[in-house]
């Protein structure tokens, strides 16, 4: 994918690489390694960004829908990779691709739409500057990209903050290594994915039996383990309840992931629900990672946050 020349080309995934590196993370690093140049900085247009999924993505295997996003980290220029959950990995597979390699820099704010063996470049002028959830909602409501799964950056990534995240499904974030800034440096607001294809396995009945056995009756009845209440959301083919959505009374935002609760509760003693939900909501919208330090700082400036979040331009979801 060359953003400078608005050109997309396809290449087959070498079989020896598939065997040698197997999964999304390994393949992403391998593609990054290809044509690596010491002179190229992480935020230069020539720098590559690789989105890769593993061989099991799109199947019923639990926790398989993880997309590896790799680039050079803007913080220190080293290799960085993070995994994004949600449905993006499965949709990429259904669209008929194993990965996307993005290079170049778009002249105007752009988002990519990846669908059924075809990639289009879309204008993102109106999306530039909006919060991550608002942009995601806007893309999902467009006719052409209706109900697509979206990897999107918030204002933090557009401003090239070295810690910026990229967000999918409202709060599944890949970050802490600055992948959002890499996307922002390419003038790329979002990657929208929607596929209608399929993934095949060699022995389908055996595969289904194995998964059913693996899930097991015991695991299914374990209430603490699965997302089941209204407001909880799961990634594709992974029903683990690692995320929770606030009820909208405190703020109008999806909030509180397991990791954030851990960070806020155990590390910076910020377990005061309105406070930390607001703090996290701010992080989700702008694309700042919810590290303990960020949460602590956000907790100290809670009035400013409240004003920012209720401001219409920052609102993540409406109605």
């Amino acid at each position: 994918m060359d953003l400078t020349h608005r050109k997309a080309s396809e290449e087959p995934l070498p079989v020896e690489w598939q065997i040698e590196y197997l999964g999304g993370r390994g393949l992403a690093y391998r593609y990054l390694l290809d044509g690596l140049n010491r002179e190229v900085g992480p935020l230069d247009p020539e720098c590559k960004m690789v989105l890769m999924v593993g061989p099991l993505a799109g199947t019923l295997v639990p926790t398989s829908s993880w997309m590896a996003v790799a680039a050079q980290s803007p913080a220190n220029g080293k290799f960085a990779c993070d995994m994004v959950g949600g449905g993006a990995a499965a949709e990429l597979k259904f669209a008929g691709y194993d990965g996307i390699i993005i290079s170049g820099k778009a002249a105007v704010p752009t988002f990519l739409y990846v669908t059924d063996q075809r990639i289009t470049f879309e204008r993102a002028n109106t999306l530039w500057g909006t919060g991550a959830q608002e942009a995601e909602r806007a893309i999902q409501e467009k006719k052409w990209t209706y109900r697509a799964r979206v990897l999107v950056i918030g204002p933090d990534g557009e401003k090239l903050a070295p810690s910026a995240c990229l967000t999918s499904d409202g709060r599944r974030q890949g970050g802490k290594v600055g992948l959002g800034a890499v996307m922002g440096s390419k003038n790329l607001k979002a990657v929208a994915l929607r596929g209608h294809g399929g993934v095949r396995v060699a022995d389908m009945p055996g595969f289904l039996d194995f998964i059913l056995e693996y899930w097991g009756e015991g695991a299914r009845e374990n209430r603490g383990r699965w997302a089941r209440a209204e407001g909880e959301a799961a990634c594709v083919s992974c029903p683990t309840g690692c995320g929770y959505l606030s009820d909208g009374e405190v703020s109008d935002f999806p909030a509180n992931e397991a990791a954030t609760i851990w960070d806020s509760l155990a590390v910076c003693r910020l377990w005061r629900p309105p406070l930390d939900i607001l703090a996290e909501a701010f992080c989700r919208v702008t694309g700042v990672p919810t590290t303990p330090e960020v949460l602590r700082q956000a907790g100290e400036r809670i009035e400013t946050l409240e004003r920012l979040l209720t401001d219409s331009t920052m609102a993540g979801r409406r109605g």
Partner: protein
Amino acid sequence: MRLRCDSARCNGCKACELACSAAHAGEFSPARSRIRIHFDALIGKAGIDFCHSCGKAPCVRACTYGACTRDEELGTIKIDYASCVACYACVEACPFGADFVDPVEHVPLICDGCGGDPTCAKFCPTRAITVAR
């Protein structure tokens, strides 16, 4: 036999779609499944389109070729693909939006109940999909 779906318990994992397409089409492809989840991850609310095996069965009435019939034993709808001409009259007739078009074979897809033991209900981790006899 008919399916019962509780959208309040749905977490949007799409296991039912994947299992359905795997059992019927032999590949994991939500676009070829006979049940559809519309999950809004931003607000955490789901809508499930599934065949209610309803009493009036507008799909059966709409079919002028006698391809779409009710399975008297199970109470589900079955399509005889040998006599189906893919006019999609059944797809347009369904009031629940639970009749889909296969993007590969271009035939209508209606839940056939998997012979009384629905695969989607087996794979639903939150028991949002259950079977009512």
